[in-house]
């Protein structure tokens, strides 16, 4: 039998079993996708580029006035050449004033895209917020619909009301400007009638606040002259300089050494108490969540599969994925408490199945799991999960799991 025949046989068998490793696109399909994408993208971009949008169009009301941010059924897609990547696919959660909300999930599940959507920083033009809303309440109690906000208005929110700390301290600072210059810039931009002298004083004060021993020296350093931990401190100092209402920390410790990780976390906790703001803490480290967060949101393949208070998630996890995460988390504080230990792969984000996304990895799947996507089931005011097993009030009530069959 020739190699080609063998290959065909394998493919045939796979096709019968419904396995599709790759997406094969004909030239025609590719062109169709590209044309379609261009059309959609142009439409969104035109909407965003509008000038002099009346304020009423993007003013809104919070569901709960105690929240700083409310995500509701947010969909953020990337229109790529191989198809539409549904990175965030219907996400709903709140960030209450003064609280830390932890967002956990495997790499690629849409945590960063969720946070970037809030900043209107999703990589345009391919990345677009397709539907849903993100509501933001500023210091004066005014509420904005971020998804409808024009670009120039958004500039006043970024860095001032909501600040961001990124995963890669080594590459997140501009290599050709001194630390001081990069820090002063934020103050000069957002504080009314700020003078260079004032900005400098503020920057030095912030550097001092984040525990940098010699602020004067660091102020005059270039980023490459600092270590990763120091640069992350600088990033935090920069984020704090306009006392934002919300700080988004996107895996702030992932790229750092274990010892430095602990210091940076300590610093974040410290800072949170000092500024009385909220933190959206993105991580795939459950240890970090346990120490820092008040609320936890567990994401999987662009959706929230479980959310609740830290107590609820850690002591009473409902979704098999969350349970898996808890199990794979080492008890002690070792360096590799990451989430990779659940077998199997996340489904292809372009071709999402219409059943539970966790089905192929779930060891408790029942028949209905292969048929429809489970709805969110509410357990308490704060705790809910999306799993068919939970429909009768909780996981333990169901006994027709795979293991027991």
């Amino acid at each position, binding site marked *: 039998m020739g190699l080609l025949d063998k290959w065909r046989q394998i493919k045939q068998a796979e096709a019968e079993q419904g396995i599709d490793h790759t997406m094969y696109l004909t030239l025609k399909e590719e062109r169709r996708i590209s044309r379609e994408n261009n059309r959609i993208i142009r439409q969104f971009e035109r909407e965003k580029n509008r000038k002099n949008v009346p304020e009423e169009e993007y003013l809104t009301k919070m569901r709960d006035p105690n929240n700083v941010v409310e995500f509701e059924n947010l969909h953020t897609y990337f229109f790529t050449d191989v198809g539409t990547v549904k990175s965030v696919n219907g996400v709903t959660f709140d960030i209450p004033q003064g609280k830390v909300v932890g967002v956990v999930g495997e790499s690629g599940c849409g945590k960063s895209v969720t946070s970037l959507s809030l900043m209107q920083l999703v990589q345009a033009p391919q990345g677009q917020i397709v539907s849903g809303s993100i509501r933001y309440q500023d210091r004066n109690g005014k509420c904005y619909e971020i998804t409808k906000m024009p670009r120039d208005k958004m*500039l006043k929110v*970024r*860095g001032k009301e909501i600040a961001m700390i*990124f995963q890669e301290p080594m590459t997140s600072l501009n290599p050709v400007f001194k630390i001081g210059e990069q820090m002063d810039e934020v103050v000069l931009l957002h504080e009314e009638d700020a003078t260079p002298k004032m900005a400098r004083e503020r920057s030095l004060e912030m550097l001092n606040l984040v525990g940098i021993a010699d602020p004067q020296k660091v102020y005059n350093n*270039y980023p490459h002259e600092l270590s990763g931990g120091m640069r992350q401190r600088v990033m935090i100092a920069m984020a704090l300089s306009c006392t934002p209402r919300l700080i988004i920390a996107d895996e702030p410790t992932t790229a750092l050494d274990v010892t430095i990780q602990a210091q940076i976390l300590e610093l974040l906790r410290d800072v949170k108490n000092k500024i009385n703001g909220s933190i959206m803490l993105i991580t795939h480290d459950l240890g970090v969540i346990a120490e820092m967060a008040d609320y936890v949101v567990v994401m999987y393949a662009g959706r929230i599969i479980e959310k609740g208070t830290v107590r609820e998630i850690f002591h009473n996890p409902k979704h098999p994925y969350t349970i898996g995460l808890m199990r794979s988390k080492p008890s002690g504080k070792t360096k590799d408490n990451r989430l990779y230990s659940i077998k199997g792969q996340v489904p292809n984000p372009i071709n999402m199945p219409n059943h539970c996304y966790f089905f192929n990895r779930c060891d408790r799947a029942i028949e209905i799991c292969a048929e429809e996507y489970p709805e969110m089931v509410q357990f308490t005011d704060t705790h809910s999960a999306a799993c068919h097993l939970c429909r009768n009030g909780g996981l333990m009530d169901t006994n027709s799991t795979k293991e027991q069959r």
Partner: protein
Amino acid sequence: MWNYLLKRVALALLILFGVSALIYLLSMLMPADYIDNQTAAAVQMGTMTLDDVQRLKELYGLADKSLPGIAKSYLKWLTSALSGDLGYSFVYGRPVTDVLSQYIWISFLIAFISYLLEIVIGIPMGIKASVNQYSAYDYTVSVFAMMGTALPSFFLSALLMNVFAIRLGILPLQGLTTATKIFPHNAYFQILLDKAWHLVLPITVLTLLGVGGLMKFTRTNMLEVLNSDYIRTARAKGLSEHTVVYKHAFRNTLIPLVTSLSGMLPGLFGGAMITETVFAIPGIGYMALRATQQGDIPFIMGYNMFLSILTVLGMLISDIMYMVVDPRVKLS
């Protein structure tokens, strides 16, 4: 860093030496040398004998074409070259250094003006194309840039000459002065204007040839920078798109731009052989082509050494500028 530069210089000297030997060997091995070219007609008509030719060759140092002979004459050339004497040009009958120093200036003028034009046109266009990646502007500019880089210079020259000099008749065809016009001696300004008018087409050709590459280079580097993490940080601070692009991104793109552009500076003295020839501009490129065609070995050697030195200088300037514009490179 200075150590590194010193090493670069030492290596460059070695390369210069190798290049000179190779060029010398190749030009000596050309099948018909300068004397053959000059005397062919006379020999054919019988006014000169082969003995006369041989005597002439000895006079010019072209008689012994065996390897040891070439080596000997090369060493002679090398020792005098090291003392700054590049010998007499066969064709121009003057010291090679004289010819060089006389004709490089017009070449430099043309090249320098088009260099400036390339910078003021190519860089802003490259930035705009990168900011609007995949837009109609980006595609249009890229296609024109590709055309400019891909067209042979003689073709582009001929095309422009045809359109602007022959069909429309608004620009002069060739040369540096209008032969049919007689200017009074003190009409300096008019003479200057006339010369400038003659330089419009050659400068246009050189600019069109170079601007595409610079535009592409700017675009590629800008795109890379615009996708980096620190640009996302800059946007997250709330900076306007203008500040993000022209301050944070462009300052980084400036590093490769400044290093490569400054490295090009010495090369501007080297002349544009084809363009100068097509437009009959008496620049160093034009002179070099004529000399090469006739086997003028001292001039070929002198000109090529000059070019090699310019290249080496360019590399050194590039390195030094790199240290100046990139704070990450330590000056120690």
